């Protein structure tokens, strides 16, 4: 990546104004993913001085600012006590501490990385994003949003619900990307299933969720059927990491394990 100018904004307004000035201007988080790109950026806009670096716990939610690093989120105690700790667990499987100390929530959410070990657990719990212009929306809607408008992620908001959670990242080596990752949650009897790195972006297995949530009890047979519905409705494909067939087999196993774990 080539950067012509570097601008440390003092306010979000200032950052937003600068962002609109040139098509190649962008917000820089930790800069780790951008580093790997071959982009030429006119002005990289840094949010260090904007004050978006807090994790706040309110009565009903955890609010995490966009400039907070993934390591800070991983170490947050309040969050680790919620959802069986799956958000923290997802992060802890990303590379090493020295990278997690650099990469930010903003870069990890806005990047919408299909392999993300942050987005899959966030989607499996109740997460919203807050953007400077587009405002507040569910993470699910944000992931589907296709717009050319450049915006700034200010924070994410995670509802403090009573959730039992399961998250598994299947990877071939310690520092690798996921071959497939699965998040399953049980919010007071309501089950959610999310599968990421298929290799496309994390998504709910909607039909499988409808099926399992309409059963009286979650027996082994119901779990088997739910996993079958999920792998048939979600799109899996082949890339250099793994074949479509292998991903389907893995997803089925981890969906089954997840459902067992959160319903036992």
């Amino acid at each position, binding site marked *: 990546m080539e*950067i012509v100018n570097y601008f440390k904004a003092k306010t979000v307004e200032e950052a937003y104004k600068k962002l609109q000035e040139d098509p190649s201007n962008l917000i820089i988080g930790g800069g780790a993913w951008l580093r*790997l790109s071959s982009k030429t950026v006119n002005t990289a806009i*840094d949010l260090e001085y904007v004050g978006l670096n807090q994790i706040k716990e309110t009565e009903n939610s955890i609010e995490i600012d966009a400039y907070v690093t993934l390591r800070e989120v991983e170490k947050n105690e309040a969050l680790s006590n919620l959802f069986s700790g799956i958000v923290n667990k997802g992060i802890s499987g990303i*590379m090493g501490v*020295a*990278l997690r100390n*650099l990469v930010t929530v903003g870069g990890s959410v806005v990047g919408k990385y299909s392999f993300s070990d942050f987005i899959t657990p966030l989607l499996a719990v109740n997460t919203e994003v807050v953007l400077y212009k587009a405002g507040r929306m569910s993470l699910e809607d944000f992931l589907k949003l296709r717009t050319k408008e450049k915006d700034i992620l200010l924070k994410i908001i995670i509802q403090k619900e009573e959730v039992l959670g399961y998250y598994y990242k299947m990877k071939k080596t310690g520092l690798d990307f996921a071959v497939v990752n699965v998040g399953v949650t049980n919010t007071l009897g309501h089950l959610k299933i999310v599968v990421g790195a298929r290799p496309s972006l994390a998504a709910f297995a909607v039909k499988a969720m409808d099926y399992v949530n309409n059963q009286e009890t979650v027996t082994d047979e119901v779990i088997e059927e739910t996993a079958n519905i999920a792998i048939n409705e979600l799109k899996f494909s082949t890339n250099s990491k793994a074949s479509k067939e292998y991903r389907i087999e893995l997803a089925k196993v981890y969906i089954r394990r997840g459902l067992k774990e959160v319903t036992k």
Partner: protein
Amino acid sequence: MKIYIEVNGQKKVYDVAPDEYLLDTLREDNFYSIKRGCDNSSCGVCTVLMDGKAVQSCTLLSVKADGHKITTIEGYQDEAKKLSEHFGHQGADQCGYCNSSLALTVHAMKDEIVKPTNKDIKEYLVGNLCRCTGYEAQHRAIKLCLEDDE
């Protein structure tokens, strides 16, 4: 762009390009203990401490270090000497290319975790690759070093 960094307690001013990485800025200033391996955030040999936290200097833009404290292994000579003695005795050292980054990461771990367990050590050091040793000997050396501190 002018940036102001404290390196090992010494105030420094560097004139850097907006897309220059800290690894290059510091090596140009003769901090050769910081190594370049993969140069793409994957191996950890370029690790330095920023405000006490381990970060990869090949990935950290120098402008992002402006106003912060950077520590290289030169800033922890005594502690590094102790660890390197254990490394020697345990056969945890071959080419030595990964040592300074490993020692800095161990320092950051000690600051962050009280009495790290075997699991803590393994998880904390997963990003520090060593092409020579196979990690077991390093793990023993680090454990002994931690025991010395108790």
